[in-house]
């Protein structure tokens, strides 16, 4: 069906996972980062490709902002965020001279850079490549899926928050997955509730129940609800390893269950 993937920069990558959502601000970058950290703790080598060109959040979440990108024979060398070189990252954030500078590009220019990120980054040997995307169903998403298709992505994690306004957008994202032949590994409901640190009352800050209903409606697995935890937000702001530092957090079980799903998922076909 597709041409066999050339021995190129993705030849050493075992599994590719996309993190999608129709909706902005639901926690795609958060989930991408925590998934990568959880996979690392499971002994895996992980790469993160951040194709959000307008709002590249991942470098800061892994304390890698301002790092330089070097060239090698195979192309760009991804930035390693740890000494052990178990997590590496490529983001447009590294290519900007000034972090406050806006990337004001129309579609074709964005598509060109995404193609380069997929084919011209020397990822090396990776167990997992997690691809974090911007919200929507447009140029970046089409370019990413097209560029990755020859390598047989494992599938997509689709992130929502509970309220109807998010679910409304994420339904469209699920349609995008169907239309582009991208398997949905499951739906993650983020920001599920907030436990008051003073009185332990749990409030549904962004309504409730939408994620599970959406998964059921679309016939895809529901991977869990991640509650709001200010410690998680702070960890990401400061580029700390939440998985290692906060195993007692109410967010921890759901994040681990997402990682488990990814670890135990078998490819639909050999890439």
């Amino acid at each position, binding site marked *: 069906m597709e041409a066999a993937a050339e021995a190129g920069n993705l030849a050493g990558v075992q599994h590719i996972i996309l993190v999608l959502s129709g*909706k*902005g*601000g*639901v926690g795609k*970058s958060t989930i991408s980062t925590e998934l990568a950290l959880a996979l690392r703790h499971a002994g895996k080598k992980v790469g993160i490709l951040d194709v959000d*060109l*307008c*709002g590249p*959040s991942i470098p*800061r979440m892994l304390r890698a902002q301002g790092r330089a990108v070097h060239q090698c024979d195979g192309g760009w060398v991804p930035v390693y965020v740890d000494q052990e070189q178990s997590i590496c990252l490529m983001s447009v954030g590294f*290519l900007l001279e000034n*972090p406050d*500078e*806006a*990337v*004001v*590009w*129309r*579609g*074709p*220019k*964005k*598509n*060109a*850079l995404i*193609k*380069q990120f997929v084919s011209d980054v020397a990822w090396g040997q990776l167990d997992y490549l997690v691809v974090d995307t*911007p*919200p*929507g*169903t*447009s*140029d970046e998403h089409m370019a990413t899926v097209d560029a990755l298709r020859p390598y047989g992505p494992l599938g997509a994690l689709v992130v929502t928050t509970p*309220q*109807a*306004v998010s679910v*409304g*957008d994420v*339904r*469209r994202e699920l349609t*995008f997955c169907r*239309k582009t032949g991208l398997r949905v590994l499951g739906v993650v409901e983020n920001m599920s509730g*907030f436990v*008051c*640190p*003073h*009185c332990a*009352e749990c*409030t*549904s*800050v*962004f*309504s409730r129940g939408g994620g599970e209903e959406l998964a059921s409606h679309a016939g895809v697995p529901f991977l869990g609800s991640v509650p*709001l935890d*200010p410690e998680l*937000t*702070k960890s*990401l*702001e*400061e580029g700390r390893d939440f998985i290692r530092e906060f195993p007692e957090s109410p967010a921890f079980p759901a994040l681990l269950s997402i990682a488990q799903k990814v670890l135990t998922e078998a490819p639909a076909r050999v890439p």
Partner: protein
Amino acid sequence: MEEVPQGCPGTGSAQAGRGASCQGCPNQRLCASGAGAAPDPAIEEIKEKLKTVKHKILVLSGKGGVGKSTFSAHLAHGLAEDENTQVALLDIDICGPSIPKMMGLEGEQFLEDNLGVMSVGFLLSSPDDAVIWRGPKKNGMIKQFLRDVDWGEVDYLIVDTPPGTSDEHLSAVQYLSAAHVDGAVIITTPQEVSLQDVRKEISFCHKVKLPIIGVVENMSVFVCPKCKKESQIFPPTTGGAEVLCQDLKIPLLGKVPLDPHIGKSCDKGQSFLIDAPDSPAALAYRGIIQKIQEFCGLHQPKEEHLISS
């Protein structure tokens, strides 16, 4: 980075499509044909069409999920509470059109006599329909919305945008360039991951010479409905919008607390200002809306002699 022309001469330049850095750019042929240099006739057409629209406000944010649509909807509701004020709300988030749901509309354009809404959401037959369009097609839709919708006599046109700094934003600014735009309201939440995108949005506004009315900080503080104590769900690790506004010398229009009722009202398509009029969040919204009205009142376009109401 040879495929992404850093040395792009600009689509309007004489070198467009012809420069060395144009080689390999997907737009090269288009630019070389000179199409990029000629101004789009739609710009003048839109200027004419929008002559009956007194004030135009863009609601922006670099970051997704901070509450642009929520704010746009409530700005529209708040302004339209005065039945003598004609308000129009245009949703140019083509991929994720939230406004119809938030306004409780299933295809009708008019919510009240004096509040009209337009969104690509109205053109989709099913809630599962995905709008999988590349930039040029999205731009075409935005042009149509601005040029082909009969807005009529409108006091305020509010334009709700998707997150980012891309096609939709460039098109909105480009097509509105001849029609006077009062300015942009920029929405953020307190944490740095939002602020870092908002700084880019502010830089975008400066680049395209779009005045900034001010910044709104959403989801500022959470008050537990049970014990009434405050928590910061999205901690302002770098000082929140307050410090950002001080640093960049931009007005902070207000801070809106995180009230679970806001989300519920939006899900039901109702105005939170009516559902919970005395709540701190509703009061914060009203204060912000008043500041926006004052800004618009102070910055009347010179060619029109308007008597302020």
